[in-house]
């Protein structure tokens, strides 16, 4: 493999992971934009999405899923889209429920009170994922310890899309990530720009009282924001699981920190910022894995997070300061 090929391979890894990170980052940035809360539990909502996906795959029968003969070519894609939508709706609903039960009563409380509550929710969800992982199910490897990582079956198998001779590998999974995430991101952008609810979100984020005075039902807008953010996180978790072929009850912590870093990097509150930030973090991770050392990659990411917060807290695309009248 030549230097260029090594580099190209890392770009592919980076972009694929980056798109997933970006989807999770959107959930952080949207919620922060509207209620100024770091939704610490978001990463763990993501985790539960992965567990739901694995459970569905298991319920359909791991063997059937793994055997291309039973399902036929197109149905693998159908299953993937089904999982994306199912996990998306589940995570969205979960996110809304968390907001209703925990965050909403604390809306006027000091920010740190809300953040501590969010950390609490995160721990509760981690525990639920632990329980879920211990469920006596075939797909979870039967007697395996609850805390053990679970194998996620290879949903999309296929040869190198760049041809058998190419040293750089582009897998079907890489392609699938783009097929799933790009339309969702475009859709989100259009939704926020064009629809009434989307305009209500922007207005509520910029000035909630003025938004109410415009006749916007801000409670509904907030619920919708949690729903969409959760949906994107759920969709991301399916792609993550399919891509990495393994899930664990603690995977949301790292994924969440990567995504939060991405959101901050792009400028928290900004949708394009989260997308760009996600891709950048994906690339930074890939390059660090290759050119520094895998074991230092988390340090690199957290280093980026701290440096950005200290030197440019508004992020790359962020606004100087939140304008408050």
């Amino acid at each position, binding site marked *: 493999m030549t230097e260029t090929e090594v580099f190209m391979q890392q770009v592919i890894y980076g972009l694929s992971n980056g798109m997933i990170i970006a989807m999770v980052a959107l959930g952080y940035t949207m919620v922060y934009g509207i209620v100024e809360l770091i939704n610490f539990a978001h990463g763990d909502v993501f985790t539960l999405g992965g567990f739901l996906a694995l459970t569905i795959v298991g319920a359909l029968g791991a063997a059937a899923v793994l055997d291309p003969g039973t399902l036929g070519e197109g149905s693998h894609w159908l299953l993937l889209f089904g999982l994306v939508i199912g996990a998306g709706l589940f995570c969205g609903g979960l996110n809304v429920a968390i907001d209703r039960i925990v965050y909403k009563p604390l809306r006027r409380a000091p920010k740190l009170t809300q953040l501590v509550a969010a950390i609490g929710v995160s721990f509760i969800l981690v525990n639920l994922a632990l329980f879920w992982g211990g469920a006596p199910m075939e797909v979870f490897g039967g007697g395996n310890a609850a805390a053990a990582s679970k194998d996620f079956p290879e949903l999309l198998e296929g040869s190198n899309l760049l041809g058998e001779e190419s040293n750089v590998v582009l897998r079907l999974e890489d392609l699938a990530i783009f097929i799933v995430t790009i339309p969702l991101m475009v859709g989100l952008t259009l939704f926020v720009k064009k629809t*009434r609810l989307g*305009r*209500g979100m*922007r*207005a509520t984020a*910029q*000035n909630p*009282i*003025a*938004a*109410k*005075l*415009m*006749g*916007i*039902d*801000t409670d509904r807008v907030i619920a919708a924001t949690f729903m969409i953010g959760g949906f994107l996180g759920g969709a991301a978790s399916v792609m993550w699981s399919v891509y990495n072929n393994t899930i664990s009850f603690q995977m949301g912590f790292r994924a969440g920190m990567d995504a939060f870093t991405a959101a901050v990097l792009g400028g928290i509150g900004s949708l394009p910022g989260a997308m760009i930030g996600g891709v950048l973090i994906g690339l930074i991770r890939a390059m660090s894995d290759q050119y520094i050392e895998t074991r230092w990659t988390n340090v690199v990411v957290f280093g980026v997070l701290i440096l950005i917060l200290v030197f440019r807290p508004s992020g790359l695309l962020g*606004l100087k300061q939140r*304008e408050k*009248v």
Partner: protein
Amino acid sequence: MTHSAQGAPLLSVEGLVAGYGSVEVLHEVSLEVREGEIVTLIGGNGAGKSTTLMCISGIVPVRGGEIRFAGERICSAEGGVRADRLVGRGLVQVPEGRRIFPRMTVLENLMMGAYGRDDRDGIARDLEQVYTLFDILRTRSGQLGGTLSGGEQQMLAIGRAILSKPRLLMMDEPSMGIAPLLVARIFEAVRELNRTGLTILLVEQNARAALKLAHRGYVLETGRVILADDASRLLVDPRVREAYLGEA
């Protein structure tokens, strides 16, 4: 000021009690605005004028008394119509400090006023009316709201409210922090709007200008209405002259 158009009460506030936390800010405030009127609410800093408007708009919860709009009870201690539903009924406020959306363009800001409306033709007509009233908004329609000058933001806030198709327009200190020439321009706009049949409740610190413009006025002091009368009579009332018009 002629008392031309005086119809049935459009808004009536009775014994309104409200506050923040453990502090009670309004102690049984009562006032009334009749169809077609310009009514002004004047008073010093912290008297509770903005709080009164926020109660009427359903933003600050009411602790006692009730508020009726177009004959229907909208707010009381037992609850009321949700804030976002009031706008659709024509109860519209231009809040203090303007509160425009800084990262939306002028046009987007104006269209937020029409958030709950579906009548495209009506919206287009009202937008044209706003542009006629404040020409500058037309030329700046693509500029971000946050980058407008203070006076321009005030015009934008009023224009945005007009696009909500108000029956009662409540304005909280539209003259605040604005050059005298522009204040005159804005007050002229208020008069024009009233001439087209719009009922207006105007909160002002600039008591003289407000009383000259209004039909009737209320004077609020530390959460209580201490005077209520025709504007022309308040203008010559010695207590008002001393406390609010800066005359001995």
